[in-house]
């Protein structure tokens, strides 16, 4: 966190100054470790064993927060009799269809009812709930949405003694029983005494009086089981009662200034604003059928129709009326995953012909960078909007394939447009940070030359396209022509007013009066709102995100700095900070509480609960939406109002986090016969995306070292914002790899000399930093050396170097379609890499030696 989020790390330092203990778990000793109380180096890709070990410790020592677990989680819920855990099936769950490499989650449901997820793959439940059929390819990830998974009619069977053998709590206990300290030591390389110390610190610092927070970044998400890493932390935090309370939670540290904003108002293919799922291509699917399938019956996702209709009104204004389902049919439909990596395959197949890259540099920044370039070389046109001529804009004349002779510039048909982009200081707008806090930034200077803001580009592109289509009578063009696309502009470049966009996102009622809360949204078309969770950011017509009352001038919650979604709440699900009777669990950790005299919830933060719902309230049978929540259901987005220790719906790869080895791993899975995540997302075979043998398979010894990629403070992601800056380039002037003294001795690597790193995908060279900060680990009885590589470099800019992403494969997390850049296997040798065709020859020789073909690593 100090390494990649130095500004946010000031708050960790402040917490430390107030007595907090900081534990840093990372394969490398980083700037964060330097300031931590405890650093735990572990094998990259083994975190579920580590977290599972802590879960097991908490369960075995009765270290969980029992009152919290019984009242606020699904721990007491009894599961169906036909559910089979990994304990029963040697590492897979019931419902696995080996043919389609997917799970049917039917047997994962609760006894007596059916649940819809609050997020994730909500389309899973579509056929059951509508009787309709899906034209979505197989049951891949896109069938769960993002709202809470839903629960069907009927009540789940509960055992509040937590002793029923099929209750979630007991299933959990059995599932994690094998995650012992001994297994942690063997699989993660973390000595037992160090592991024990972490367990003690975490459990002693949790409970009524104290809370523990977890912070993570892409070191957890970028795995073939990435979502389950986060789930493992969720299970642990839920058991310890660390969610919805001050000082608790699981904090995603996100990579760019507004990555949170880019999922709230998504640049993702499978979501609409506010985490409403993008509709799938179902036969005769109208608005009612969609809402019936995707919404939850209880909780705030029960109001999905209001959120969606208001969104459609914001998109299509007067054209959206009840008679035409508020233009629901104008929304595109998903026919499967359309993630970055499938898009590359579609480019190669010729079905994707044009590509916009806005602030993205896949030619060095995405996994298997060569595949990215091959895909772009098959396009008709490519638009690159960035500050500088990044590699994704110039691969056609000076990319690695030109050097190896695999591509010749004159053969490439792609028309490449480069449009200079304005920096954040040259435009106004909002950033949404990891805490869901919107902060407005003002324009300081005009952008230089032809550089323009993304808002300018998008608005004027839309305007020009609409002008060209103005006389069209083709119904296909109606969604574009009916869009509300009127924004005031200013200045000589006709820059659209970002404040007007924020006002549209906030929404207004039928009279045009700004809304102040998502609870005002209606499903009859009388309200318009561009993103329901942002409703209130422009309450009273005032830009609430621009508020900057200094911390010294307000209380510790600092509610007047910026604006946090939803409803300016700073801590989500904060009803859980009070006990079932509505009293704070402890005075130290008081946040919100029930005021009996006032008949309402009060507190330091905005209560995340229906203001007048008393703790004693129990809903009448059949109550729906928010009305279905009882006074002890703090997790108001969930279909049952509870935190989920176990996920009956919404995940494609299992209801409980389970350790699988990374796609490419030098080690066998110590815990189960199942080596890899059986439903990991593999892309169709391609000669430049070969997988490696793993574990005890012959050939796996050819790639004996675990590698991981990361960022360092001095540079930013794929380098587009830093490698062209001389002041940053001089701070880290060359691509390097970090190795331990032991590995240097084993392979003859010299400090500041050159190393060649090879995988089945490619070969790169890097300067060598030999450092004690890369600790060798003892894993499964042998010494493991890990190779660390920052992924910032590429051939262009003030500082240049090979791209670490040349080495990485395209095997993805099945829920998020994120690549596995944080744990893979390589070989490393001294000296510079071969040039030209000889580089290809080296990779070919490695593949041959490891016996790699198109089937390698694709086993279930």
């Amino acid at each position, binding site marked *: 966190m100090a390494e990649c989020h130095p500004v946010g790390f000031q708050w960790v*330092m402040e917490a430390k100054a*107030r007595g907090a203990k900081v534990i840093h778990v990372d394969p490398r000793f980083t*700037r964060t470790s330097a300031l931590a109380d405890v650093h735990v180096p572990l094998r990259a890709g083994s975190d579920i064993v580590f977290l599972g070990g802590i879960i097991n410790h908490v369960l075995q020592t009765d270290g969980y927060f029992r009152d919290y677990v019984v009242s606020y989680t699904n721990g007491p819920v009894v599961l169906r009799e036909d559910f089979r855990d990994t304990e029963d099936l040697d590492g897979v769950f019931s419902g696995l269809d080996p043919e389609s490499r997917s799970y049917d989650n039917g047997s994962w449901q609760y006894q007596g009812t059916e649940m819809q997820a609050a997020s994730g793959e909500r389309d899973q439940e579509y056929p059951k709930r509508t009787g309709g059929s899906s034209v979505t390819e197989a049951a891949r990830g896109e069938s769960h949405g993002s709202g809470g998974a839903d629960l069907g009619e009927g009540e789940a069977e509960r055992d509040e003694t937590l002793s029923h053998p099929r209750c979630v709590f007991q299933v959990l206990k059995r599932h994690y029983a094998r995650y012992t300290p001994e297994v942690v030591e063997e699989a993660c390389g973390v000595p037992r005494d160090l592991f024990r110390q972490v367990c003690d610190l975490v459990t002693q610092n949790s409970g009524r009086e104290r809370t523990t927070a977890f912070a993570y970044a892409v070191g957890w998400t970028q795995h073939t089981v990435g979502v389950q890493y986060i789930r493992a932390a969720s299970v642990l935090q839920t058991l310890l009662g660390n969610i919805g309370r001050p000082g608790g939670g699981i904090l995603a540290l996100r990579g760019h200034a507004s990555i949170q904003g880019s999922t709230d108002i998504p640049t993702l293919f499978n979501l609409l604003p506010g985490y409403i799922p993008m509709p799938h291509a179902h036969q005769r699917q109208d608005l009612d059928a969609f809402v019936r399938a995707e919404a939850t019956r209880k909780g705030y996702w029960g109001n999905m129709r209001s959120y969606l209709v208001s969104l459609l009104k914001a998109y299509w204004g007067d054209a959206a009326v009840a008679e035409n389902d508020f233009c629901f049919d104008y929304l595109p439909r998903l026919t499967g995953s359309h993630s970055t990596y499938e898009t590359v395959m579609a480019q190669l197949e010729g079905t994707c012909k044009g590509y916009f890259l806005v602030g993205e540099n896949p030619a060095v920044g995405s996994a298997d960078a060569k595949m990215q370039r091959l895909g772009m070389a098959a396009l008709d046109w490519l638009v690159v909007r960035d500050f500088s001529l990044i590699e994704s804009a110039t691969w056609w004349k000076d990319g690695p394939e030109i050097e190896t002779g695999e591509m010749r510039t004159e053969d490439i048909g792609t028309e490449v447009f480069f449009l200079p982009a304005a920096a954040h200081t040259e435009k106004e707008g909002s950033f949404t940070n990891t805490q869901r806090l919107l902060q407005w930034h003002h324009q300081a200077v005009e952008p230089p030359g032809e550089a323009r803001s993304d808002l300018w580009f998008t608005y004027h592109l839309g305007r020009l396209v609409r002008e060209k289509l103005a006389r069209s009578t083709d119904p296909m063009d109606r969604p574009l022509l009916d869009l509300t696309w009127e924004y005031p502009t200013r200045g000589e470049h006709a820059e659209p007013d970002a404040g007007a966009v924020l006002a549209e996102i906030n929404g207004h009622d039928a009279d045009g009066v700004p809304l102040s809360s998502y609870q005002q949204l209606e499903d009859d078309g009388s309200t318009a709102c561009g993103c329901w969770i942002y409703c209130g950011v422009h309450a009273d017509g005032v830009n609430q995100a621009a508020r900057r009352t200094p911390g010294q001038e307000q209380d510790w919650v600092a509610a007047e700095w910026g604006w946090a979604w939803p409803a300016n709440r700073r801590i989500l699900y904060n009803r859980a900070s009070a006990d079932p009777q509505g009293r704070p669990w402890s005075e130290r950790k008081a946040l919100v509480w029930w005021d009996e005299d006032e008949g309402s919830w009060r507190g330091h933060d905005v209560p995340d609960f229906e203001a007048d719902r008393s703790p004693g309230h129990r809903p009448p049978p059949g109550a729906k939406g928010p009305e279905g929540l009882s006074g002890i259901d703090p997790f108001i987005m969930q279909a049952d109002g509870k935190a989920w220790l176990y996920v009956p719906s919404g995940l494609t790869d299992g209801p409980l986090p389970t350790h699988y080895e990374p796609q490419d791993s030098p080690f066998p899975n110590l815990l189960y016969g199942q080596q890899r995540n059986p439903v990991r997302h593999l892309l169709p075979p391609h000669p430049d995306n070969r997988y490696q043998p793993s574990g005890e398979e012959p050939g796996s010894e050819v790639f004996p070292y675990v590698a991981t990629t990361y960022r360092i403070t001095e540079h930013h992601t794929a380098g587009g914002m830093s490698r062209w800056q001389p002041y940053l*380039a001089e701070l880290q*002037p060359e691509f390097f790899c970090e190795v331990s003294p032991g590995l240097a001795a084993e392979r003859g690597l010299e400090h500041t000399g050159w190393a060649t790193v090879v995988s089945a995908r490619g070969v790169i060279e890097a300067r060598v930093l030999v450092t004690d900060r890369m600790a060798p680990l003892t894993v499964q009885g042998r010494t493991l050396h890990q190779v660390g590589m920052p992924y910032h470099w590429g051939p262009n800019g003030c500082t240049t170097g090979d791209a670490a992403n040349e080495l990485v494969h395209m095997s993805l997390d099945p829920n998020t379609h994120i690549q596995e850049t944080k744990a893979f296997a390589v070989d490393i040798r001294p000296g510079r890499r071969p040039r030209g065709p000889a580089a290809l020859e080296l990779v070919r020789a490695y593949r041959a030696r490891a016996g790699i073909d198109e089937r390698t690593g694709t086993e279930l």
Partner: protein
Amino acid sequence: MTDGTWGGADRTVADGGLLSGPEPDVARAAGYPDAPQRVGFFTDTSVCIGCKACEVACKEWNAIPEDGLELTGMSYDNTQGLGGSTWRHVAFIEQRKPLGGQEPGTGQDTVDVFAAARDLGVTPSAPGPGATSPGPGCGEAPAGAPSGEISPVAPDGRSELRWLMSSDVCKHCTHAACLDVCPTGSLFRTEFGTVVVQEDICNGCGYCVPACPYGVIDQRPDDGRAWKCTLCYDRLGVGMEPACAKACPTRSIQFGPLDELRERAAARVAQLHAAGVTDARLYGEDPQDGVGGDGAFFLLLDQPEVYGLPPDPVVTTRDLPAMWRHAATAAASLAALAVVSFARRSR
């Protein structure tokens, strides 16, 4: 050269000040009768995270050119040292020593954080963001708090590791030799007590370069003139803090009146010692030291040499008066000898 004489006390002729020893009011001694309080930096390296924001902010604000793309292999330090085009330098030192030196306020284990948080902005003395001094309400330990200090576990066969980071800068010495030797008046003492080079007057003679006991000031190869930290003289003039201190996310670099910084630093060292960090020490804060105390001083976690700092710096002009006295004596002796010899010859 007004009222100074080369004999007696070590008074310079330039500013009426001393060449060495304690100097309580450096700006007044330099001829500013209504000088504001002397300001400077306290760099607390125990909370430095090595982000180098200070280096970048300094270069941005002062429009200093990039000065070389060289991978040094010295941990993450590719800046190497202060110079004509590097006025802030973050050193990185990897040591085989137990983790745990960087303890921001471990003495506050007993603070009730929520009481402290509620008091934020209410009590003037409450620690604000980045506070490194103990807040109010140091009372009994909160219930259930993990007890005791964390002792680093040494995993089998592995050495423990400590990664020191420290942002170095011009010390703005009380007795600044660079200033003393400057023949053009390009280097001067400001009303804030800081030492600044005026690049439009500098003639590139380079006398200041060997005069600096810390090796801070240097000439730029392409223009020959001498450059160093100005403590953002232009920003101070309009009531702003220097760019590096402004950019520092953890308040490792603290800017303020020197007296206040010295108090804060002493409290901080005491706090770290109480927490068992016996390595903590101040560097450059002592008015009795060889340069009369630095305007920019440091809290270090190891010997100064480890960070590339001289252990016992002495203003290089300290001995100038004595040298001149000796020279004068020698000259007088020679003259006398000459007179005697001529006297003899004439005979």
